[in-house]
């Protein structure tokens, strides 16, 4: 289901061409970002610094993800943009329109037919496949940041694999709440080396990071970092032997499609506070209806 069937990017379209370079960023910037991406793929989980550009949107709206997407896009690509799983929220719509306008590419809601998916805080329910690229918007790339404020120190800790502190956080969780209460941005270890923040996806999605067929890229605009999980990479969620990692979702079924296995959003449906649950992945829900 292709949403826009506009003209492909061609030289015969002087208006689009003159207003913006393809995908907004200039070619030098894209090359710089691509180099960072290649390095990130070569060292899975390692945060590669890059020179983040001002984008025509505020920080926190996905400037990192947008720059990575802009650098990956080819005129033949089909782009899907989701925000918390949904194709139709403001953030998703804005970014999709942004690329429709500046790159003139095809866009879609369909997970399966997209070649690049930019996402905020979710991984689509439908399994990704080889050749696809999933690009995450990342607010704070450093998993150790809240425990160790010094960037110089966290870099050394990564370099020397000193990750005891990460478990201190989980220890504190169990101590304070009786279980690991971290529900999103749950820390992972990539290819048995780097500890990484998977961006604020629910920990329900963590198992999908492991051995994924698609290339996963992470862009943090404000913090100027890019990192990656290449296809078929081992990803482990950190835990304790006696408090193992457990993906978590609401104990309910989707009131639209009846799915009992997808990640659900809670919706308050009336003034009495009654709740209903629907799939957070709108495309998945749509297809099942």
């Amino acid at each position, binding site marked *: 289901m292709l949403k826009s069937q506009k003209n492909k990017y061609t030289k015969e379209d002087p208006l689009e061409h003159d207003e913006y370079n393809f995908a907004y960023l200039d070619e030098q910037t894209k090359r710089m970002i691509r180099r960072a991406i290649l390095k990130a793929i070569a060292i899975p989980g390692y945060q590669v610094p890059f020179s983040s550009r001002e984008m025509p949107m505020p920080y926190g709206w996905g400037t990192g993800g947008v720059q990575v997407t802009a650098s990956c896009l080819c005129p033949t690509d089909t782009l899907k943009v989701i925000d918390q799983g949904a194709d139709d929220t403001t953030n998703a719509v804005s970014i999709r329109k942004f690329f429709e306008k500046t790159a003139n590419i095809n866009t879609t809601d369909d997970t399966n037919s997209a070649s690049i998916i930019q996402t905020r805080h979710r991984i689509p329910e439908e399994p990704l496949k080889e050749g696809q690229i999933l690009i995450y918007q990342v607010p704070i790339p450093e998993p150790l940041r809240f*425990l160790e404020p010094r960037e110089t120190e966290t870099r*050394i800790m990564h370099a*020397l694999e*000193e*990750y*005891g*502190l990460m*478990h*201190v956080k989980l*220890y*504190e969780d*169990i*101590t*304070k709440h009786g279980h690991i209460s971290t529900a999103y941005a749950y820390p992972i270890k990539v290819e048995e080396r780097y500890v990484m923040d998977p961006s604020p996806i629910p920990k329900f999605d963590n198992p999908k990071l492991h051995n994924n067929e698609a290339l996963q890229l992470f862009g943090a605009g404000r913090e100027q970092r890019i990192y990656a999980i290449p296809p078929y990479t081992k990803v482990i969620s950190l*835990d*304790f*032997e*006696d*408090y193992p990692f457990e993906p978590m979702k609401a104990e309910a079924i989707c009131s639209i499609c009846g799915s009992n296995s997808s990640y659900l959003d809670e919706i308050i449906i009336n003034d009495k506070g009654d709740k209903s649950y629907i799939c957070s992945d709108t495309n998945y829900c749509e297809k099942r209806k």
Partner: protein
Amino acid sequence: MNNILSVKSLTKTYGHQIGCNDISFDLHEGEVIGVVGESGSGKSTLLSCLAGRLKVDKGSIKFKSRTDVKEELTEITEVRRRYLSRTDWAFVHQNPRDGLRMDISAGGNITERLMALGQRNYSSLRSKALNWLSKVEISTERIDDNPTTFSGGMQQRLQIARNLITEPRLIFMDEPTGGLDVSVQAKLLDLLRKIVIGLNLSVIIVTHDLGVVRLLADRLIVMKSGEVVETGLTDQVLDDPQHEYTQLLVSSVLQF
């Protein structure tokens, strides 16, 4: 010889300023050496050099590892140094805030090093934390409280527990009783004494408090202006000081 540490001609300067000059000594396993001297005498510089926190200009520091291999500490990599400093060494800071994570619970503070070494069983970590809390005489009910809610003496004891849980063999102490009131000092000293003897630890303790070294140290090194002016058996140096400076130091103390 069963030297855990051999220091030879260690020199460290800060530009033209001498930090410490041509220091040599051996530390046996199970031995406690006190380093005394006034502020600026170079004793803290010496400690920082030994613990690898400062780069040495000249000299050698040989450390005997658990596998009986002599390692030259001035030449080991940063990776190795940091590994040693969380397994074989402990550093007890004067200010417990420098050695603790103030926004992490007491239990988390104590067990961090174990987690860093790969221990992944919450219940067993917890029981080890409880065990160490009682060893350092902190009520086990306080395990989930942050150190910010602890008194200075308790914070210092917590720091010691956090440092000693991996059963290090070499302890560096920088004024461990500084900033504590006298009754709390006595308790801490007694505790340190018990632990040091009980675990057969090798210790280098830097302090200007002669009472502390009298109680803990087997041997004494007296420093002034970056140089060693006198060494010897602790009570001999304190009761029959030879060097002018040591005599001044000893006579300046009201009672100890």
